[in-house]
């Protein structure tokens, strides 16, 4: 579904990605782990070109996203993204947050967009907060809304950039539950995370990145039970 070839990104002389290649298949739940500064967030942000790569290719459903002639905005509609800091729109109600993009970009009429939004809200248990503003919600609620906002565009892949890192510990579970359900429904997901439990339990593939490169890749079992590289072994001994 997404094939990444020799991806490179430089920030002011600092190489954040030094040539990353990976194939993401339909139905994959790929978890990306690694120490901070390893380039995993940059890698994720390059997938929908929020960060423009300095080299390599990102091919999404056969189209090279770096090609100037393709309509990037249309491709982005099919790639939902969830941010560490939620980034809900504070000047809109929850319902407006959810219906804004589908109405504007997919020309769905208000009633239909609201119906879809309410269905999703129901599923994450937040239907009663439809009229609230983001600042009235807890962190966990905000992040669940942010996930729903992306889902309302009916994307084919969901990108998660450390979705639980800004949350109070007691709220991490409710967000991970939503993500787990999503994975069970067969959504293709790429998840940058520090939640090793989630990566092990929900992911079907795990990437370990360090220093701008993929150091090791495999099933959760291979990565967590039989780490091959020394770097991964020392990383796991610190976080587990």
């Amino acid at each position, binding site marked *: 579904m997404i094939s990444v070839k020799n991806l490179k990104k430089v920030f002011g002389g600092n190489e954040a990605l030094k040539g990353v290649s990976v194939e993401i298949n339909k139905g994959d739940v790929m978890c990306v782990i690694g120490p901070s500064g390893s380039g995993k967030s940059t890698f994720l942000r390059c997938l929908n070109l929020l960060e423009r790569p300095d080299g390599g290719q990102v091919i999404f459903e056969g189209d090279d996203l770096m090609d100037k002639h393709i309509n990037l905005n249309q491709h*982005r509609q099919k*790639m*939902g*993204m969830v941010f560490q800091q939620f*980034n809900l729109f504070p000047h809109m109600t929850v319902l407006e947050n959810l219906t804004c*993009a589908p109405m504007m970009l997919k020309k769905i009429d208000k009633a239909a967009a609201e119906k879809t939004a309410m269905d999703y809200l129901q599923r994450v248990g937040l239907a009663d907060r439809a009229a609230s503003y983001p*600042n009235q919600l807890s962190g966990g609620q905000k992040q669940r809304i942010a996930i729903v*906002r992306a889902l309302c565009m009916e994307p084919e892949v969901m990108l998660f950039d450390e979705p639980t890192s800004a949350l109070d510990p007691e709220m991490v579970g409710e967000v991970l539950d939503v993500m787990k359900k999503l994975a069970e429904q067969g959504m293709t997901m790429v998840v940058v995370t520090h939640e090793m439990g989630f990566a092990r339990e929900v992911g079907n593939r795990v990437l370990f990145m360090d220093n701008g490169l993929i150091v090791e890749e495999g099933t959760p079992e291979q990565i967590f039970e039989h780490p091959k590289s020394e770097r991964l072994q020392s990383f796991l001994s610190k976080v587990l």
Partner: protein
Amino acid sequence: MSAWFAKLHETFIETGYYRLLLQGLGNTLIMTLGALCIGVVIGTLIAVIKYFAEDVPALKPLDMLCDLYVTTIRGIPVVVLLMIFFYVIMTSAEGITVGIIAFGINSGAYMAELIRSGIGAVDKGQMEAGRSLGMSKVQAMRKIVFPQAVRYILPAIGNEMIALLKETSVAGYVAVVDLTRAGNLVRNNTYDAFNPLMAVALTYLLLVVLMSRALKKLERRLAKSDKR
């Protein structure tokens, strides 16, 4: 005391000069509001162009033009600008029209910076969230970023309006009878300097106090909507 009242009556009422002052007040307000509108439009335009020029190379020349405009206007005293417009550029136009345009163009340069910093104050993640949903930069600006920037910009525009009100007092240089000019004419014709000038000063003061109050109220209301 009664002598002073008699003097007031003589200076303003008997002569009918109060009408001149009212007319002057009207012109001052017209110029302030007109210039404010032009300033907001120019300022918004420049701020938006500069925002998009950051990653659209085609806008670079326009961006440089905006810089040139802001630098030039900020470096010229508004009276000089006003006279250039009246005596050189728009020689056949009426003073008040020239005033609105010159003060508007002047104010636009300051407004551009205010609006730009307002847009810059909105969290970068807001634009990213909009883009990640598939919005174009223009769509995300219009629907997501700008509405949030307004709450930072509005109070600053209020302050700019207060400054503008007082700036228009130089309109007399191009034969506009604004509040200041009207007061000066009354002084000249009645040989009473104290009362006309006091009347003018107090009117400005009153207007500024009223505008500041309205601004405070607005700020309080914006702060409240922040907390919701």
